[in-house]
């Protein structure tokens, strides 16, 4: 593929941030070539200089950085151009999509004006023409009621919509090179898949060069032709994707591939009759929150499930699906509007907080943000000891022994005990949270996205740890996550949630091998496997969902998915769907799926 001439090549590209007399070198004498029609994935840990490189390619640096070296774009050095020449290339021949879509938009100006400004900067269009074009562009990236949205301000848009607005700006002038800096990091998986598919098609059809900055091995494996790894401002590996996955050279690369062992088979799932006693039962749980203007946001509705000893339930869904609220209701961090929660035969949703206290040591939790959940002023020893102080009558020595035991249980060593949370890595912090949760030997755990805030390698370690604990301690837990591969590996049973409802339930094996609900299918389809030989773009049939997740405040009358579902009929839009059992331990909230299962 190197016969074609490079569209852009950097030579000795350097980015420095001056601090007084010394300079912090972020990009160090870097050479990189980008070719038309090729999608390049730029990987590296945070702080390796990936984002700085994405900008430096356009001759830009974050204020007050300085770019030097050569950036040859179609034979011309961008860094030697005057401001006006450079301006005409930026946003015209080279488009940029940044990581934080909402921050990339001017908060004081409405979206339509911002899009038309970019358009007018590179064309002779009048204000009115540009405004019309802005509406067209917004519609072309799948924003419904674009006429109304052009006058929206950035703070009135969701992350996904702001991202679309940015994309429409970057593509408004048909660039030859598109730079996308973690373009999907704030997006839900189904929206991410939509976006990446479209970008991939664009790159293929218009023969444009794309540079994607990412930390996600799945994105690279599925969409990139070539992989570039950066460490400390330098390129340490630069190869074709397939070669890289077969045999990574750098340690970082090896770690990445290793951490992607997450495509494992479903855990020891079986439909055999479960004989172990029931630990938790939830029936018809419902919770709404009041939002501005007296309306009510429906967070959870009609959630029912039970969990038996030694089993684990994965609660899966995108942001706003209500999965976290279910966890909070069980933990009594919020009270349900209606419904019941039973723990080992005792009802716990309606008892007084004082009575509930004795259950606290039996029901423990680990939350998403590892640092926020630990008191930053306490040494680790005290953090882990706290539940022992509260719930046990152990002596000082016994407590210390227990703390040490817990620390080694989660794979840490005693020497972290005097440290404070701030000096641990995110992965270690999360292990400490887990050790604290296990301190009182709880019978039930709620793990709310415990792996989501961790870097890829730490995430893989955490999953391995949870898996081994599951076997050793016979743990019983709910695992809340939007990450399907993790859930598949850890959980016996799965409940898929969409917009406050459980839409499908079954064992991991059942749901993953034969998803029934259209939403589950789309969710599974949008999983990006870490395997360049099984790419999403190569799959023939895709279940694609259209558009945005509706607002949980104004829910549709019929099936909540109807507006996005490719299979939707009139009946779907009219009738609200019930969760119907279609087999042993398996139910689905879709009349079409139910009919299909009966055939």
């Amino acid at each position: 593929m190197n016969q074609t001439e490079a569209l852009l090549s950097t030579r000795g590209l350097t980015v420095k941030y001056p601090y007084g007399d010394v300079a912090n070198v972020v990009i160090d004498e870097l050479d990189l070539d980008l070719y038309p029609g090729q999608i390049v994935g730029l990987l590296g840990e945070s702080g390796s200089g990936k984002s700085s490189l994405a900008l430096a390619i356009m001759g830009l640096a974050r204020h007050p950085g300085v770019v030097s070296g050569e950036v040859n774009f179609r034979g011309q050095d961008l860094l030697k151009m005057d401001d006006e020449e450079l301006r005409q290339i930026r946003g015209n021949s080279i488009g940029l999509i940044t990581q934080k879509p909402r921050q990339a938009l001017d908060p004081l100006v409405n979206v339509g004006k911002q899009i038309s400004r970019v358009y007018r900067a590179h064309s002779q269009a009048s204000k009115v023409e540009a405004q019309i074009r802005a509406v067209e562009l917004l519609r072309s990236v799948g924003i419904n009621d674009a006429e109304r949205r052009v006058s929206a301000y950035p703070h009135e848009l969701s992350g996904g919509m702001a991202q679309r607005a940015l994309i429409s700006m970057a593509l408004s002038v048909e660039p030859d090179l598109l730079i996308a800096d973690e373009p999907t990091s704030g997006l839900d998986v189904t929206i991410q898949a939509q976006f990446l598919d479209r970008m991939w098609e664009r790159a293929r059809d218009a023969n444009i060069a794309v540079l994607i900055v990412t930390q996600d091995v799945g994105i690279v494996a599925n969409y990139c032709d070539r992989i570039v790894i950066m460490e400390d401002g330098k390129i340490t590996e630069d190869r074709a994707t397939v070669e890289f996955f077969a045999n990574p050279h750098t340690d970082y690369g090896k770690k990445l591939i290793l951490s992607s062992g997450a495509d494992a088979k479903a855990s020891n799932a079986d439909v055999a009759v479960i004989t172990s006693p029931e630990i938790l039962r939830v029936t018809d749980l419902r919770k709404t929150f009041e939002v501005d203007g007296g309306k009510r946001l429906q967070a959870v509705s009609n959630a029912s499930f039970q969990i038996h000893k030694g089993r684990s339930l994965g609660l899966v869904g995108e942001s706003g699906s209500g999965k976290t609220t279910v966890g909070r209701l069980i933990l009594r961090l919020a009270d349900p509007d209606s419904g019941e929660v039973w723990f080992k035969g005792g009802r716990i949703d309606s008892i007084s907080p004082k009575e509930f206290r004795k259950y606290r040591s039996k029901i423990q939790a680990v939350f998403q943000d590892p640092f926020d959940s630990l008191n930053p002023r306490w040494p680790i020893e005290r953090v882990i000891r706290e539940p022992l102080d509260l719930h046990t009558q152990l002596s000082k020595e016994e407590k210390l022994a227990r703390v040490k035991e817990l620390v080694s249980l989660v794979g840490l060593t005693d020497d972290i005990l005097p440290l404070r949370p701030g000096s641990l890595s995110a992965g270690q912090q999360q292990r400490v949270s887990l050790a604290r949760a296990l301190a009182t030997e709880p019978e039930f755990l709620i793990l709310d996205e415990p792996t989501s805030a961790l870097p890829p390698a730490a995430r893989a370690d955490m999953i391995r740890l949870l898996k081994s604990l599951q076997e050793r301690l016979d743990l019983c837990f709910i695992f809340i996550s939007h990450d399907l591969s993790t859930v598949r590996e850890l959980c016996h049973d799965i409940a898929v949630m969409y917009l406050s409802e459980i839409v499908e339930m079954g064992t991991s094996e059942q749901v993953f091998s034969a998803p029934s609900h259209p939403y589950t299918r789309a969710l599974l389809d949008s999983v990006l496997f870490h395997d360049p030989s099984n790419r999403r773009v190569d799959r023939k049939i895709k279940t694609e969902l259209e558009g945005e997740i509706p607002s949980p405040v104004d829910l549709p009358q019929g099936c909540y998915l109807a507006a996005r579902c490719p299979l939707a009929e009139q009946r779907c839009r009219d009738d609200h769907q019930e969760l119907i059992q279609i087999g042993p331990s398996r139910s689905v909230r879709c009349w079409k799926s139910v009919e299909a299962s009966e055939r």
Partner: protein
Amino acid sequence: MRRYVLRRLAVGVLQALGITIAVFFVIRALPADPVSRIVGMNPTPESIKQARHALGIDMSLFQQLLTFLGFHGDGVFTGSLGKSWVSGATVLSEIAITLPTTIQLIVTSFIVALAIAIPIGMATARRPGGKLDKGVFGYGLFAGAQPEFWWGLIFIFVFYFKMGIAPAPLGMLDPELTAPPAVTNFVLIDSLIAGDFTAFKSALGHLVLPVLTLSFLLVGPLLKMTQQSMSRVLSSEFILYQQASGLEKKSIGRSTLRSALAPIITLTGILFGFMLSGAVLVESVFSLNGLGQYSVAAVLNLDFPAVQGVILVISVISLFVYLGLDLLLAKIDPRILVK
């Protein structure tokens, strides 16, 4: 929007009234007797009693308050602030003379200060550590370390005494000129109305040094705020994105300034309220008969009606200034909801 303004005004009026009533009681709690200033040395008990009656402070505190508010004849509710115990003139008429002098001084000073602070602040934010930035830092240390009247004296010494290019620091007009007929009591405006350009030029000349002194001090905080606010916006994601989108420099500059403006506007409002009475030292150095001077004299003379009047007027003006600024901020930033 209109409801918001009306509500703000209603609340503001209550606040102003509350402040005035509080002041009314607080000054009367001072361990000082206003009568002693009036009756002179060796007063007879008779004359003291008479003076107390004349000032109305022989009544109960509550009755005094009712009188002040206008329940017995003219008072705050009927638009009267009473008569000064020192001069006998109405407080309102005295404020009507002194307030314009002060407003004229500080408004001009703010215009000058903003005209200096914003461009320099923008430039230094763009090039931190540059020559201009170092110069500004030096100025900050230098100007901030010395009191304003001192700078006033230095400017008089240099520009009037040594160089002779500034008029004598005595009031708003040359002594040989007659003041233009008072219409607004703003000398600059009145002289223009009268078509008296000699007086206008003289008044402008007399404003130069006090304005220089005040703006020399105002530039400090305003410049600092502009710098910080600008460098925050310059390093923001959306300015970077506008550069990456190839927008014209002018257009990016406009976005930057607009985004950086809010804290500068807020600071201007705070400083303005403060300067209404805080310009007193500059007023005395340049013998300007302004509100600051008037209020200090009122306090020293225990002229209760004048003190109450000045405080009420200042709080009402501040109320309007803050309201105006809030509306301006809401106009600039759509995230600030005016409900």
